[in-house]
């Protein structure tokens, strides 16, 4: 198994960092310890930006530029199998940013994805289990996008068709007149075509995830008393029955009344059950945390197997939320490869650390 890893990173005028440059251990866990607000998550966010060209906190580019600066510059050298590439990102307070691989502008994000992948674990992952369906759709969509450009194309077609159909529904003001009815048929057809492809891909992904999530959850909960042996269920739930085209046409009166498309992949969900009960409502907080971790570990495993190399793991403050048993179980089930871990204090369990650094007010010290 190939390991993809950062040799070094530099951050200039990014969030609370003026300038910092660090060398990183190729394999194993590097632990960054610091108080809240010291800049630990910012460091992981910077790595995420280099790998995905977006913030895993959902921050716009200008929000990541240090106050008083007009531009943030992130650089990192990524190696796999002895070959290195230089990734550089420029974020501007005004105007578009720039992303380069080996000094060449990146034209397609797919080129970046094939050079470098990351898996992010963050305290917000609890939303995967506890939050609304959009979090679970995003989880599936992100994984599918990392497998190749085909899914992204189908999804953007679906979203475009959905936007057009919704615009037409709004313009209709409750009733279709004249040529409008026929154009609605056309948007139904385009949305159905792309939407079926999206739903099909998501469903197949969920099926591939089931055994992996169950295995990861089993490892995590083995240590937690009283929560062993609960069966995990994972099911992709479409918001319609039968063919999407027929369903859209049947829903048309309702859609016209509400001036929005009421069914389609944009309304689907992935239902997670624990012992047959919906985990979103019935599982305990500890079980929900374990499930969220299991979902991330399962996704990471799938990306590793499909892509033929291990993504870099970014673990943001995940141990502080877990009890000692789950901490120990997570530490044991962390896959090999490069992992960057943040914590406010040393974890309660002993971790096999490759390196350790202290973060305070935008300064990183070994």
């Amino acid at each position: 198994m190939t390991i993809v890893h950062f040799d070094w990173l530099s951050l200039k005028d990014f969030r609370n960092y003026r300038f910092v440059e660090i060398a990183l251990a190729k394999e194993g866990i590097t632990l960054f310890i610091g108080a809240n607000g010291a800049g630990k998550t910012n460091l992981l966010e910077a790595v995420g930006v280099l790998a995905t060209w977006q913030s895993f906190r959902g921050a716009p580019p200008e929000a990541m530029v240090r106050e008083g600066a007009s531009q943030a510059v992130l650089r990192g050298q990524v190696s796999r199998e002895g070959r290195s590439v230089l990734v550089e990102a420029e974020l501007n307070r005004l105007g578009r940013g720039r992303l380069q691989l080996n000094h060449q502008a990146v034209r397609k994000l797919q080129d970046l994805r094939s050079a470098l992948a990351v898996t992010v674990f963050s305290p917000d992952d609890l939303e995967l289990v506890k939050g609304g369906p959009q979090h679970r759709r995003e989880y599936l969509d992100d994984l599918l996008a990392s497998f190749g450009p085909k899914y992204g194309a189908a999804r953007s077609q679906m979203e475009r068709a959905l936007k057009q159909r919704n615009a037409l529904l709004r313009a209709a003001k409750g009733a279709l007149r004249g040529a409008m009815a026929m154009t609605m048929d056309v948007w139904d057809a385009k949305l159905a075509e792309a939407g079926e492809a999206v739903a099909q891909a998501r469903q197949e992904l969920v099926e591939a995830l089931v055994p992996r999530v169950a295995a990861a959850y089993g490892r995590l909960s083995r240590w937690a008393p009283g929560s062993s042996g609960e069966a995990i269920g994972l099911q992709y739930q479409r918001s319609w029955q039968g063919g999407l085209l027929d369903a859209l046409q049947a829903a048309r009166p309702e859609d016209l009344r509400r001036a929005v498309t009421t069914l389609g992949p944009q309304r689907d969900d992935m239902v997670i059950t624990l012992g047959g009960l919906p985990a979103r409502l019935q599982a305990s907080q500890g079980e929900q945390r374990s499930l969220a971790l299991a979902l991330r570990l399962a996704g990471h495993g799938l990306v590793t197997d499909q892509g033929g190399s291990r993504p870099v793991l970014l673990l943001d403050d995940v141990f502080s939320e877990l009890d000692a048993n789950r901490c120990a179980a997570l530490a044991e089930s962390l896959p090999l490869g490069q992992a960057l871990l943040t914590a406010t204090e040393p974890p309660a369990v002993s971790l096999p650390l490759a390196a350790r650094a202290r973060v305070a007010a935008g300064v990183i010290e070994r």
Partner: protein
Amino acid sequence: MYAASVQELIDELGRLPGIGPKSAQRIAFYILKSPAEDARRLAACITAAKTKVTWCARCFNVAEGEAGVECEICTDPRRDSSALCVVEEPRDVVAIEKTGEFRGRYHVLQGAISPIDGIGPDQLRVRELLARIDAEGVKEVILCTNPNIEGDATALYLASLLKHLPVKVTRIASGLPVGGDLEYADELTLGRALEGRRELA
């Protein structure tokens, strides 16, 4: 910041499609630095084009002359009037002409169906298209709208209108870059796509 006339030039250039504030600035200073004669010629070209050019009364391609005039392709007797190629914009006519694969005539819709932009069939030259089928003895309509979702939707819409008329309806074969514009498809790909067009059910 700049003298009023310079700022005005930058603002006007910035309103053109595909030109952002930075490009507008660059072009404005390029014009200011170039010889006065060059700038006069550019201004004269814009004025001349705007006064001389109108839409072809038949196909809505660009045409030169008074309102009501027909374009060079529509008035060329050697063109085959039984085949009609439907495109979104005049620039698509140019792209297809370059392939040398098509000897019929054109119909320019002047856009594609896009509810987001408030464009439906009534905003396009659809009625005019239907009127031409019988009047000109069209046997085949080739739908060459752009291979993106709006172009596809427009083709699908036209196909459902045309199926009631005694005419064969084809769509250019895929093989064009998905989500692309005809304008940017290279001539060979576009030529092959025209050859491999398929009938729409």
